[in-house]
C-alpha cells in the first residue's frame, strides 16, 4: 500500500512536469542509444579485424623448424658433461620438415577434450611458371573439409567452388593477385616447379582473396594429396598440424605442453599475433569511456531537473511531511522519479540503440581487402544491452540520490512558517 502510494505520488509529480521529464529522459535515451550503438559497432569492427587473423589462423601450430640443435653431441657425453665445451661454427643440420609419426599424434590430439578440431597441412615453396618467367610462391596443401570447418576456407574463395579442390584431381585455387599476374582463368592449366625441380600441371578451380595483399600475390591452395604428389612424397607426409581450441585463452599453455610432449615446435596465436589483441582492447576501452561519459552527462541533467523540481515542490514536500510522510518516504518519492526517468529513457535508448545498429548494419561497406564483408559490421552482443541497462539505472539512481536526500531533510516548519 505504502509503495503503491509513493509510486502514484512520484508519477503525479512526473506528469506535472512532463516537459522536463521528457527532456531528462531524452538525455538518458540519447546516451544509451549512443552507448549501445558505439559498442556494437566498435565491437563488430574489432571482431572483423580479429577475425581476419583469428578465423584463419590456427590457435596452435605444430611444425618442425630448421634450426641448429640446442644440444651438441659433446654435451650428451657423460665424460664431458661437467666441462665447459666450446663448439664453433655450429650449423643447422639437414632435417626434414615432415612431422614424424603424425598419424599417431593426430589420433592423440583428437582425444583431447580442450581441442575443437585439427587440420593437417603441407607448406611448400614453389615456382609458378608463366611462359619464360618463374614467380616464387607458396602452395598450401590442405585437408579441404577440415580447413573449411575450422578456418572458414570457403569465405575467402571469391570465385569458383572450394570443394572442387577436393573433387578435381590435380587442382589449385590461386590467390587473386597471383591469378591476375599469371592471367590464369578458372579452368586453365598452370605449371608449377618445386624447389627440387619436379614439374607438375595443375588445373585452376578458383580464386581466393584473404584481404592481405602479400598472401594473395604469392600463395595458393591445393589438396593434401595433390601436394604430396607434387613433392613426390608418401601419403603420410605433412609439415604442419593446425589446432583449434575451444578456449583460445588456453593456447599458450597448451602450446608449451605439446612442445614438450611431441618434441615439435608449437606456436600459439597470442604469441604470433600479439598486436591484434592490444588494438582490440584499446578500441574497446575508448568506446566504453565515451559511452560512460555520455551517461554521466545525462546523469547531471537528471540531477539538475530533480533539484529544480524539489525547489518548486518545497510546499508539497512540507505538507506531505506535516501530514505524516516520513523523510524516508519523501526520499523514496524522488528516487522513484529519478529511476522512472532512468528506466523509461534506458528502455527507449536500448530500442533505439538496436535500431541504429540495424541501420548501420545495412550501410554498404565494400573493400577489396575484405571480400566477405558487404556492410558495416555490427556485433549484437546482449552484453552491451545489459551493461547499458544497468548503467542507466545506476547513474540515474546516483543523480537522484543527492536531491532526494535534500528533499527528505526539508524541515516543514521553516516552509510553513515562511508563508
Amino acid at each position: 500500500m505504502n509503495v503503491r502510494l509513493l509510486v502514484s505520488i512520484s508519477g503525479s509529480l512526473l506528469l506535472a512536469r512532463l516537459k522536463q521529464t521528457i527532456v531528462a529522459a531524452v538525455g538518458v535515451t540519447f546516451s544509451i542509444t549512443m552507448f549501445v550503438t558505439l559498442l556494437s559497432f566498435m565491437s563488430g569492427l574489432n571482431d572483423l579485424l580479429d577475425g581476419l587473423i583469428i578465423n584463419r589462423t590456427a590457435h596452435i601450430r605444430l611444425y618442425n623448424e630448421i634450426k641448429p640443435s640446442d644440444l651438441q653431441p659433446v654435451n650428451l657425453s657423460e665424460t664431458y658433461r661437467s666441462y665447459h665445451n666450446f663448439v664453433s661454427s655450429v650449423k643447422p643440420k639437414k632435417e626434414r620438415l615432415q612431422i614424424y609419426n603424425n598419424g599417431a599424434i593426430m589420433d592423440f590430439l583428437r582425444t583431447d577434450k580442450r581441442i575443437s578440431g585439427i587440420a593437417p597441412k603441407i607448406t611448400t615453396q614453389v615456382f609458378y611458371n608463366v611462359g619464360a618467367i618463374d614467380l616464387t610462391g607458396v602452395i598450401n596443401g590442405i585437408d579441404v573439409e577440415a580447413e573449411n570447418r575450422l578456418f572458414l576456407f570457403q569465405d575467402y574463395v571469391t570465385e569458383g567452388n572450394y570443394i572442387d579442390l577436393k573433387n578435381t584431381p590435380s587442382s589449385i585455387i590461386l590467390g587473386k593477385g597471383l591469378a591476375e599476374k599469371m592471367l590464369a582463368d578458372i579452368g586453365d592449366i598452370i605449371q608449377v616447379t618445386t624447389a627440387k625441380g619436379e614439374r607438375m600441371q595443375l588445373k585452376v578451380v578458383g580464386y581466393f582473396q584473404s584481404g592481405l595483399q602479400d598472401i594473395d600475390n604469392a600463395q595458393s591452395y591445393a589438396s593434401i594429396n595433390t601436394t604430396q604428389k607434387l613433392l613426390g612424397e608418401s601419403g603420410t607426409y605433412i609439415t604442419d598440424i593446425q589446432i583449434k581450441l575451444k578456449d583460445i585463452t588456453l593456447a599458450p599453455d597448451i602450446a608449451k605442453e605439446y612442445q614438450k610432449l611431441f618434441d615439435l615446435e608449437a606456436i600459439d596465436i597470442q604469441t604470433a599475433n600479439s598486436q591484434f589483441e592490444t588494438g582490440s582492447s584499446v578500441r574497446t576501452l575508448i568506446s566504453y569511456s565515451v559511452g560512460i561519459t555520455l551517461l554521466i552527462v545525462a546523469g547531471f541533467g537528471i540531477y539538475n531537473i530533480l533539484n529544480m523540481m524539489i525547489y518548486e515542490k518545497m510546499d508539497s514536500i512540507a505538507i506531505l511531511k506535516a501530514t505524516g510522510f516520513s523523510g524516508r518516504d519523501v526520499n523514496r518519492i524522488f528516487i522513484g522519479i529519478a529511476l522512472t526517468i532512468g528506466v523509461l529513457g534506458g528502455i527507449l535508448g536500448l530500442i533505439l540503440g538496436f535500431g541504429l545498429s540495424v541501420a548501420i548494419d545495412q550501410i554498404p561497406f565494400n573493400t577489396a581487402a575484405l571480400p566477405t564483408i558487404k556492410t558495416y559490421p555490427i556485433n549484437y552482443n546482449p552484453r552491451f544491452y545489459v551493461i547499458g541497462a544497468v548503467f542507466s539505472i545506476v547513474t540515474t539512481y546516483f543523480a537522484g540520490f543527492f536531491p532526494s536526500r535534500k528533499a527528505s531533510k526539508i524541515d516543514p516548519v521553516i516552509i510553513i512558517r515562511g508563508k
Partner: protein
Amino acid sequence: MDQIILEAKAVSKYFHDPVTVQVLTDINFSINRGDFVSVIGKSGCGKSTLLYILSTMDTDYTGDILIDGESMRNKREVELARVRNEKIGFVFQFHYLLNEFSVLKNVMLPGLKLGKYSEKEVEHRAYEKLKILGIESEALKKPNQVSGGQKQRVAIARALINDPLIIMGDEPTGNLDKKNSEIVFDIFKELADVYNQSLLIVTHDNEFALRTDRIIEMEDGRIL
C-alpha cells in the same frame, strides 16, 4: 469524558541564531478530549512556535510532550511522522493543497499513507468528510479550480481523514474574508460539539477566540 489527550510538561525553547533567545518558558498545560481551545497572543509571543512543538514537527525543545499519554521525546523521525499521520490533523493559514492531485485525492493522501483502510474505504471516508464540509461536489476538481474558502475546507477535510485525536490550526482563518472565516469557525464548532473533536487553534482573531470553549493567552513565551 475528561480524558487528557495532549499534555505539555515544562516545555521551553531557545533560538540560537544569531544570539540565544528564549522563546518559550516553562509551558505547562493539558487538553482533554472534546476541548475546543484557542491560543491567542501578540505576534512573536511564541504561540506558533508552541504549536509546532506540540505537533511534533519541531523537536528542538526541552521538557516533554505527551500525546495520548505517550511521550514524544526520544522518538525517531519515522515514529513522529506516524504520530502526525494518525493522531494529528493540521490546518494552516495557507491551504497547502497539492495541485497535481484532485481535491478528493488530496483528502485521501494521509489516509492512504496510514494504510488502515483499503483504497476504496479511504475514498468513501474522504467523500463523507467532504460532505460534512459541504464541498463534495468539488471532489473531482483540481485545487486551483476551487475558491479560497473551499480550499481551506478541503484542508480541514484532509485534517479529518484519519479521525485524529486533535486538530491543530495555525491561523486557519487568517487568509479568509469575514464570510469564509465564519464558515470555517462554524465547521470547527460543529466538529467540537457534534463529533466531540478536540481542537487547538492558534489565532490572533480575538472575536474567534472568544467563542471557543477555552482561551490560552500567551505573552513573551509564557502562558498568562
